[in-house]
């Protein structure tokens, strides 16, 4: 059971997060202020940490900086009511691994925590494989079994990202940030349209679907069962 440390000063928010993550099989310990949080973080028992940006006692970013300077590399998700792009950049620069703006959907939080716990495979292989799906990074070709898939560059990039994170829930916001390097929320359902195109090419009608759309949450790429 993965252990998480939550440093969050608002008790109600903390209770919600703990309940939700507890249901999803996480063991969450909680610290209500920066000092206590830093002490718990130093004990190093957590597999990942969720740290609120603004805390009494000690600023969230200071905690992260302190931990990183002490060589503690536990992945951190920064939680903040400060939504500005600048704040996000600051959060990541001070050593955070991901940044989530309040208010957020719980599924978004869970997806990001799971992503942190399972760092993407940075395998040096030039060919990525998921089930029958093969992506050649040198030749820029994709095929499913013996069937060649003709991909546009943007579709190739999206598929590569998903194959490196197979079996993981990828939310729309994560895809926007990571694949398109989008710094803002577009007004249209960009991700769905692009994903629709890709799905159409990857999963033909007579094949078992590999890309699943989890309604209201995001997308998962899996080897067909």
């Amino acid at each position, binding site marked *: 059971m993965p252990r998480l440390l939550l440093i969050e000063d608002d008790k109600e928010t903390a209770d919600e997060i703990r309940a939700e993550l507890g249901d999803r099989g996480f063991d969450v310990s909680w610290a209500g202020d920066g000092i206590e949080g830093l002490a718990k973080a130093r004990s190093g028992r957590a597999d990942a940490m969720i740290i609120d940006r603004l805390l009494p006692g000690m600023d969230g970013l200071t905690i992260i900086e302190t931990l990183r300077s002490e060589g503690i590399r536990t992945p951190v998700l920064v939680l903040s009511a400060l939504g*500005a*792009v*600048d704040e996000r950049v600051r959060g990541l620069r001070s050593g955070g691994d991901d940044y989530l703006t309040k208010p957020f*959907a719980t599924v978004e939080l869970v997806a990001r925590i799971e992503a942190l716990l399972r760092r993407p495979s940075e395998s040096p292989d030039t060919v990525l494989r998921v089930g029958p799906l093969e992506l050649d990074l040198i030749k820029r070709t994709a095929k499913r079994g013996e069937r060649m898939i003709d991909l546009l560059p943007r579709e190739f990039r999206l598929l590569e990202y998903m194959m490196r994170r197979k079996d993981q829930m990828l939310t729309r916001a994560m895809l926007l940030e990571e694949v398109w390097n989008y710094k803002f929320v577009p*007004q249209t*359902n*960009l991700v769905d349209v692009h994903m*629709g195109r890709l799905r159409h090419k990857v999963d033909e009608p007579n094949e078992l679907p590999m890309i699943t759309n989890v309604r*209201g949450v995001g997308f998962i790429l899996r080897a067909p069962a």
Partner: protein
Amino acid sequence: MSAASGSSSVRLPDFARTTTFRSTLIVAGAFFLCTVLLFGFVYWQTAVYMMDKNDALLSDELRVFAQNTPEQRLQEIDDRLRKDPERIKIAGLFDHDGHRVAGNIEILPTGLPLDIPSSAVVVRLDDHGRELQKVRIAAHVLPDGEILVIGRNIAEIVEIARIVLRALALGLLPAIVLAVAVGVVLSLRARNRLLEVNRRIQRIVAGDLRERLPTRKGNDPFDQLAAGVNLMLGEIEALVHEIAGVGNDIAHDLRTPLTRVRARLERGRARATTLDELRTVVDQSIGGLDQSLAVVTALLRIAEIEHNRRLEGFSQVQLAPLVREVGDLYEPIAEDKHVTLQVEAADEATVHGDRDLLFEAVANLVDNAVKFTPEGGRVTLALLHRDGESVIQVKDTGPGISEAEREAAVRRFYRSDKSRNTEGLGLGLSLVAAIVKLHGFRFTIAAGPGCTTEIAFPSH
């Protein structure tokens, strides 16, 4: 009350405490000092000159007298004294015991240095009787032992001092009075103006933002200052009104989805009979809340851009790849809607700016265009070169924006009534306007058919 009036009676009058009045007093004082010094110098120089001349004359006369025979001498002394209607000449001959032999001096003054003129007080004897006179006087011992004394009254030098003093008083007193009077008038005027300014400031502080500081036709520093402050007040007034308008818009745009959510929840609670029905209602409600939150996010984003005065994130941005990238991003969306998206990026311009923000701006324009163009329509995204500047133009065949709505469209929070039914927050164009303003580029919404939006990049 009595205490207050008592204390005010010892206080200086208000005008006397103004800076203008004090400056006037200082200048008047300096002027007074200079004038006194000048007059003193004039007096001193005149007195020295006259004394020197007087002494030279005395020495000459003494020499002439000394060379005469005793008879001639007596005659000369007599002549000298007779031809002196102004009674300024003094002469005397004393024997070696100091007894008067001739002349108009009663007693030989003691301690006179010989042959050199010096100052002394003597008793003058003539037809008018005895009189004490202040004189310059020189003595010479004759070969027969008699003492010859020649002198001149120096009362006229004293007279000159009196004349100089009188001139000083006549010239200086009116000048001082005038200076003080001018000081009083100027300081009263400055004070009145200040009082007026203060009154108006009080009104502004009390909330009357239409109030302005008084200006006159002149162009003195005070007027320039007032004009500057008025300009600032105008800007503040406009901003405050804008904020008030924005507040209303926010309230409205938040209330609409929230009202919908509330109604849905209420109905769901009353009507839902199965868990699935209840879930559907809750899902819809969450969607409504997300919409409200998106409004807040977009607003914060605009505020962030508007307050972002730092230009450190700026670099050279190539426009053509940016335009092609936006086109690439929206092409499938347009296709799904059966709208043709045509991208033309021939110009090889680069601009100084924040690439992410510019991308966001162009993406928003295309997003809007695709959204508001009906099925079968066409959206053109083009990078042009026109009149020496690069222009990114987004043209659509949608319903367009009326002239009256165009300006409102770039304000925060506006959505044309025609588009109320289409999903979207109406913040897209205000976001674009904020980004373009930050860069110092130009954003225009041109007349239709359809809607044409342009970001122009001045080439300087």
